[in-house]
């Protein structure tokens, strides 16, 4: 109907939004984008370079003989390609990102600015140490903050991500046992643990023995004691655990583990719940990695880079890998090789070239300085408060299997409330996408059926939490009311509908293959 009265137009109420087929396949601002191999050409470049000076080649017989087949794009084409692709992603900057145990909190832009200072971005890991005093100072400052927060004796900064940190901590334990002349073969891992824990232990040749959870979702010290033996090297325990609970018997567990001559590896994935509230060192932890990309907000970047410094107890400190920072008369010194070792220092080796994820150290330290002791504690308290608020407001419609106790920074629901509705956890998660939310962590931890693990973080306003809660309530009521279409067909409004993962795995296509020339294809 034509607008004849100068009032804002609005669609006729009866017109339901139906999918519109367009000529281009685009839908308004949602623009389809081809692969660089379809739009680029090998003879096109978005970088202007002068011709190479004529010089005698020193490549010998090694000069490349065949073309590579690498497409190029000019700058405007490239910018458009990547900007269009970016718009097919969900992001923290777009909305609440409730992935449990992933800590998707706000990424302050100040940190991005700091890491791009030439004095941090444009320095080489092997330029003379006399020219990088500020970098070593920064590593020392970060170490100080981490050690103060955790109450531990030493820190190995170099691990590149959480799982790499696990490897680091478990290697330190293996080295400490070897130094005692022992080679124990078993590592205890609770069933609720993240998959990296058993994978790490197995990579070091350990046999993984699962520790069953008790009724309330925590580890029973009696179960641990029953499994302890002179052959147990360590227990790997996440605290707060992946059910969102603080392991309340942790001190008793740690004492039992130590009494058996074993070590206590703490998975620090959920450290965001307890910074400034309790120090892992006070609980008996011997080694713990800290995901700087979770608790200290270095951006996840679509799957990394991460950074996983490992704090170590007095017993493990001597085994910290190279490189490490030592204070010599108050001055931080970067020790890179065996040659520089003091007597008590017996590193188990080296985990990576150079010195670790400096770019993440810069961002994390900027985050810590900005928060301060008060802000860090507030962040943890707000994260825990927000998770408990979500739990309180949803517990009439969702079943929290361990709901009898306060949760930490994430709340775990199972799928029993969906029973009989024909809607699975997966369907529920996909329907959240249509509502503009990234789904929660689903089907993890494995100890409850159809798990939904929600971590709101401290970055959400009350209004944001309330809308999220209202959305989940609406979905839950729709499921109970039998509106299965809303779930089975979901997502309907995302850049793609459900993808065929079985097909992807059955006949893997992992790289672009140039189409055959028309003549060959016809044959």
């Amino acid at each position, binding site marked *: 109907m034509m607008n004849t009265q100068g009032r804002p137009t609005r669609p006729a109420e009866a017109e339901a939004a139906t999918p519109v087929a367009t000529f281009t396949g685009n839908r308004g601002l949602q623009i389809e984008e081809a692969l660089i191999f379809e739009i680029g050409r090998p003879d096109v470049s978005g970088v202007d370079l002068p011709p190479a000076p004529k010089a005698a080649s020193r490549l010998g017989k090694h000069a490349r003989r065949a073309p*590579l087949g690498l497409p190029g794009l000019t700058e405007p084409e490239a910018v458009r390609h990547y900007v269009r692709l970016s718009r097919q992603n969900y*992001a923290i900057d777009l909305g609440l990102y409730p992935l449990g145990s992933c800590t998707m909190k706000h990424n302050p832009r100040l940190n991005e600015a700091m890491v791009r200072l030439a004095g941090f971005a*444009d320095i*080489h890991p092997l330029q003379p140490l006399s020219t990088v*005093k500020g970098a070593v100072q920064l590593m020392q400052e970060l170490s100080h903050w981490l050690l103060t927060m955790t109450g531990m004796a030493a820190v190995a900064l170099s691990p590149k991500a959480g799982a790499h940190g696990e490897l680091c901590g478990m290697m330190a334990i293996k080295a400490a046992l070897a130094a005692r002349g022992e080679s124990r073969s078993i590592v205890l891992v609770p069933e609720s643990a993240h998959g990296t824990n058993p994978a790490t232990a197995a990579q070091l040749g350990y046999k993984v023995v699962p520790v069953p959870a008790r009724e309330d979702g925590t580890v029973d010290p009696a179960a641990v004691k029953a499994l302890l033996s002179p052959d147990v090297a360590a227990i790997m325990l996440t605290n707060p655990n992946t059910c969102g609970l603080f392991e309340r018997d*942790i001190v008793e567990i740690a004492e039992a583990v130590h009494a058996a001559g074993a070590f206590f590896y703490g998975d620090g994935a959920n450290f965001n719940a307890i910074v400034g509230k309790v120090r892992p060192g006070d609980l008996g932890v011997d080694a713990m990695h800290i995901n700087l990309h979770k608790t200290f907000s270095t951006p996840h970047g679509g799957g990394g880079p991460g950074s996983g410094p490992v704090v170590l107890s007095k017993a493990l400190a001597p085994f910290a890998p190279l490189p490490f920072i030592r204070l010599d008369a108050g001055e931080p010194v970067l020790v890179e090789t065996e040659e520089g070792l003091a007597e008590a220092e017996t590193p188990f080796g080296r985990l990576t*070239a*150079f010195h670790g994820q400096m770019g993440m150290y810069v961002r994390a330290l900027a985050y810590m300085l900005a928060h301060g002791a008060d802000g860090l504690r507030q962040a943890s308290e707000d994260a825990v*408060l927000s998770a408990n608020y979500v739990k309180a407001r949803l517990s009439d419609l969702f079943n929290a299997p361990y709901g009898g106790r*306060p949760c930490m920074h994430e709340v775990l629901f199972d799928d029993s409330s969906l029973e009989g509705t024909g809607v699975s956890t997966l369907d529920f998660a996909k329907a959240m996408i249509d509502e503009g939310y990234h789904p929660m962590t689903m089907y993890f931890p494995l100890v409850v059926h159809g798990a939904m693990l929600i971590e709101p973080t401290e970055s959400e306003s009350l209004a944001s939490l309330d809308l999220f809660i209202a959305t989940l309530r609406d979905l839950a009521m729709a499921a109970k009311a039998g509106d299965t279409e809303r779930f089975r067909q979901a997502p309907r409004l995302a850049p793609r509908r459900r993808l065929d993962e079985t097909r992807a795995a059955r006949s893997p296509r992992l790289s672009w293959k140039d189409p055959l020339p028309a003549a060959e294809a016809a044959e």
Partner: protein
Amino acid sequence: MRYHPLTDHDRAHMRATIGVGAVDQLFSDVPRDKLLSGLLDLPTTKSELEVERLMGRMAARNVAAGSVPFFVGAGAYRHHVPASVDHLIQRSEFLTSYTPYQPEIAQGTLQVLFEFQSQVGRLTGMEVANAGMYDGSTGCGEAVLMAHRLTRRNKAVLSGTLHPQYRAVVETLGRMAGDTVEALPPDPEATEDILARIDGQTACVVVQSPSVYGHLIDLAPIAEKAHAVGALLVAVVTEVVALGAIEPPGAQGADIVVGEGQSLGNPLGFGGPYVGLFATREKFIRQLPGRLCGETVDADGKRGFVLTLSTREQHIRRDKATSNICTSSGLCALAFSIHATLLGEAGLTRLAAINHASAAATADALAAVPGVKVLNDTFFNEFTVRLPGDAAAIVEKLAAKGIIAGVPMSRLEPGRPELADLLLVAATETTTDDDRAAFAAALAEVL
């Protein structure tokens, strides 16, 4: 503070909804005597301005590579990165998204990973590549473990061409997993006979070309010998720009290629974060570590991408996984891929030629300094010189004159007097004729 949207009023309302009086009631499972009552012994919150001031002071204590004549390489290289790369990787939807576990709302990241895998495959001359490793050195360690799985043998032979810190990573992993690692001595003059070290117990032989000393190594005969005894060749490339100029390892028979991808798209950043390249043959994909992105279709038949073959990975297989890797290096892979797309084949080829010419001119300038000998017959953009004295001391003297001259080999291989007079020198498109002249003149002065 500025990052926390909740107000005290909100908090009170939330506590009331939950039914607690004080927030510490939510921490009731923490043992009473362990719950901290006061603040940690650390400074309190700071404004942006204050943080900038503190960080700026630390940054100012470092000498930025771009501010001086600069010749350091050895596994990380200073290149010009187009401004659009850093702009694009800071798009919120790339920077602040998680691993693409929900593919319907992560096609941006997934398509980039598919393109990245394809680019890495073509650069290395291999059939498939994964979505990236933490960096080159950890990728090297994973390649050795993969070779052990594939051959069911557990001995790795490391060439003396390999970066010493890569060697240390492999040795550490090997020692901890109970595997055998045989490392040949450093090979500064490219004279080692590695063929004699490959036998029927060998799972893989690891060779770097260009070597850490800059030499270009003929991989084909090594691959041939390895294959003859059922072993695999792991080829390592720490300067990926070289692949614009030299024969790719895949064309020389490599079974696994690992590379450091920092040179494209990523700043030096004091050593990280970088991105590892990891490529292999199609028949080995089920033993690959790390993430893989694959093509598929959605419910409407539209092309789309997903993470695939995840039955290799720790979140499914737990203690039977091919590796424990979870977070990888997504944003650095994005930067790599954008830079590679901007260059294209024509740009990369020219960039490589400029790098080579720059290094050749630098080698000629240094060779003209009395007492300095260039060890390399072949090189790409980095070479080794023998100095008439301790290289580390000479580098310090040059640093005092405002020239960052390269990596004294003793920094990477301490305790080997025969290497103490060796200096690794790299030059790239960022090196100017003035830089070279200043380096040669200053070197002549301090010798």
